[in-house]
């Protein structure tokens, strides 16, 4: 177990910059997820952490030790690959034993047959077998030790890959999209198992994924990466509810956050999509702003104006507890998606005109350059009165 410190890492492949100065501190025992779309540099950062790639600039420490220039095996890290990277010709037991054999046995002791005869080798090998069996047992793959990877299902291979990483108790676990090759149901199950594994082992985990559901459910903190830069590093709740940038808000959340262009009318009021909403924006009147409204920040209402948006129903998706209602708003290209509680929603039909109210305190405001505009919600009597006046 160890803390990890990443300081100003830069990396280019040829003339293409992949990492543009990434700095990040990961606490001992933390589960940190690098989240971003493919090509954002998250896997490269993980490979640099592992020592499989060399950074062009910057420094990495694991524990108290600067590991720049150290080979992967000297860094005391273990890695789980997206493809699992199991050795296909070896049994599950040999796959899991390899990291221990490479560390504890000398080159001569590792020789087949002859190696076992050397003093100490048999004892060490028996100890390795025991540890492998114990780890396998704890992962529920104890009965598969004699099989080869080709005879295993995807989920079983995944467990073997995790077991190979676990067996030598590394300081840091590195996981590169470990669940991507599994089907949806198994992915959810393995997600829970990885979470449980982290709680049980208490090690430092660095987990790379492009799947926001994995990032949100697993992590203590999520590091959102885009175009080789870290945009925000924060707990999942903060990333979702309080993003620093519009790009983050758009990347996280499903369905995607609704983005509407508005203009500050006066202090405390913003014009948007033919309506006016009472939001205290830290901007001068006439400033264009972008409103990010999560689908669940809407509620059905029976009148227009007054902090409500009006549109015609384009499509309804029944999700059980909720309805996703797609609305066409006048003068807005993208349909608005509102997530309404099914039991409180009445008479919604295709083509109908629907009014949805917005909870002002759940609207995220962004400046034209995508930065977050902090604002104070002011549901004061004065502003409500002025809305009524405007509505008339």
């Amino acid at each position, binding site marked *: 177990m160890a803390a990890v410190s990443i300081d100003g890492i830069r990396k280019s492949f040829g003339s293409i910059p992949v990492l543009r100065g990434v700095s990040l501190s990961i606490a001992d025992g933390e589960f940190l997820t690098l989240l971003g779309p493919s090509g954002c540099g998250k896997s490269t950062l993980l*490979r640099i952490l*592992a*020592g*499989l790639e060399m950074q062009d600039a910057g420094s990495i420490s694991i524990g108290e030790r600067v590991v720049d220039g150290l*080979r*992967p*095996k000297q860094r005391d*890290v*273990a*890695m789980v*690959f*997206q*493809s699992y*990277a*199991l*050795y*296909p*010709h*070896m049994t599950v037991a040999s796959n899991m034993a*390899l*990291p221990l054999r*490479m*560390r504890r046995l000398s*080159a001569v002791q590792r020789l087949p047959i002859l190696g076992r005869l050397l003093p100490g080798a048999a004892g060490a090998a028996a100890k390795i077998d025991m540890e492998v069996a114990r780890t396998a047992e704890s992962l529920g793959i104890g009965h598969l030790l004699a099989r*080869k*990877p*080709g005879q295993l299902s995807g989920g079983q291979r995944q467990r073997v890959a995790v077991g*190979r990483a676990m067996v030598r108790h590394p300081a840091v676990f590195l996981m590169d999209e470990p669940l991507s090759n599994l089907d949806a149901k198994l992915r959810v199950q393995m997600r829970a198992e990885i979470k449980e594994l982290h709680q049980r082992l208490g090690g430092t985990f660095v987990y790379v994924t492009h799947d926001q559901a994995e990032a949100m459910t697993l992590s203590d903190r999520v590091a959102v990466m885009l175009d080789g830069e870290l945009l925000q590093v924060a707990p999942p709740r903060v990333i979702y509810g309080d993003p620093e940038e519009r790009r983050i808000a758009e990347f996280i959340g499903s369905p995607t956050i609704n983005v509407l262009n508005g203009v500050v009318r006066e202090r405390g009021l913003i014009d948007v999509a033919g309506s006016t909403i009472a939001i205290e924006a830290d901007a001068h009147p006439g400033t264009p702003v972008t409103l990010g409204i999560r689908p669940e920040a809407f509620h059905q209402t029976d009148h227009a104006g007054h902090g409500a948006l009006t549109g015609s129903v384009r499509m309804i998706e029944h999700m059980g507890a909720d309805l996703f209602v797609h609305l066409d708003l006048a003068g807005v290209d993208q349909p608005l998606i509102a997530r309404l509680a099914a039991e409180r929603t009445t008479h919604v039909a295709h083509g109908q005109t629907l009014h949805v109210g917005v909870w002002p305190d759940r609207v995220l405001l962004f400046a034209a350059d995508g930065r977050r505009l902090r604002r104070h919600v002011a549901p004061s009597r004065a502003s409500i009165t002025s809305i009524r006046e405007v509505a008339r």
Partner: protein
Amino acid sequence: MSRPVTLFGWFDAASAASGIAVSRTTSPARRRAFAEAVAAWILAGPAVFLLLGLFLLPVIGVLLIAFTDWQFGAGSFSFVGLANFREVFADHAFRASLLNTVIYVLIVVPGTVAMGLFIALLIESGKSCRAFYRAVHFLPFMATLTAIAIAWEALLHPTIGLVNQTLAAIGLPTSNWLRDENTVLAALAVIGIWQNLGYAMVLFLAGLKSIPQDLYDAADVDGADLWFDRLRTVTLPMLGPVSMFIVVVVTLRALNSFDAVKVLTQGGPGHASEVLLYTLYRESFEYLRTGYAAAIAVVFLSIVVTLTLVQARVMDRKVHYL
């Protein structure tokens, strides 16, 4: 869902067709099956014809001739039963030839595989001039050995040959390579390795390219990061399937070696470099003992077929991991 079309489906379909003639109640599915079977026969026809004409019928012909005393060009023959085979196995020259062939194969196959792998690893580990090295090592495989053999003859010439001159210059014993019964087979084997090397190398290169980088990365993280450990943990096991293919093909090529023997040694001195195909050729086309040669051909064919089957069975189980 359409049912699988096999050539044997035709019999089914034929009865379906006769069904059409007898009653007009045949289902559309059966009519369609008949059409598919006809199409299958038309498509497979040329290949079936060639296989029969060029392979199966000649083999059957050879098999029949092996039981006769026919001589090439003779107007008549009579069946002699197993006499040809008895004679073959009693013949010292044949046994020498069989032993020579075995020794030749046992030198050429491991030599070719080891050298081919070594050169493929060298080429793959470097970055420059890869295409050049590939081409240079592949050239001998493309060349006509009959022509190249003359160059080898010059190289191995006892007095003016470069090999002996070099050996003499550094104070090592020389030899009359192609005329000494102790060295002739080894010299021919070296030429055989030299010729097949490029083929093995190209296949190994393709095999190396198909090893996933992830496995090397995993080996690095697991601590198997020295070249020997990487070779043992990842490279060699992952080359298993391609190695099997190379061993089979090179074995067959080594068994088939003929031209170098014919051009350089004619099986001599004595029978020291006589290999099966050369014996077969001499018996058949120089001594015109066609029945006897056919018996050798049958023995040769059984060896080749057995070897191929055994190799495919045994190695398939060990090198395919799925």
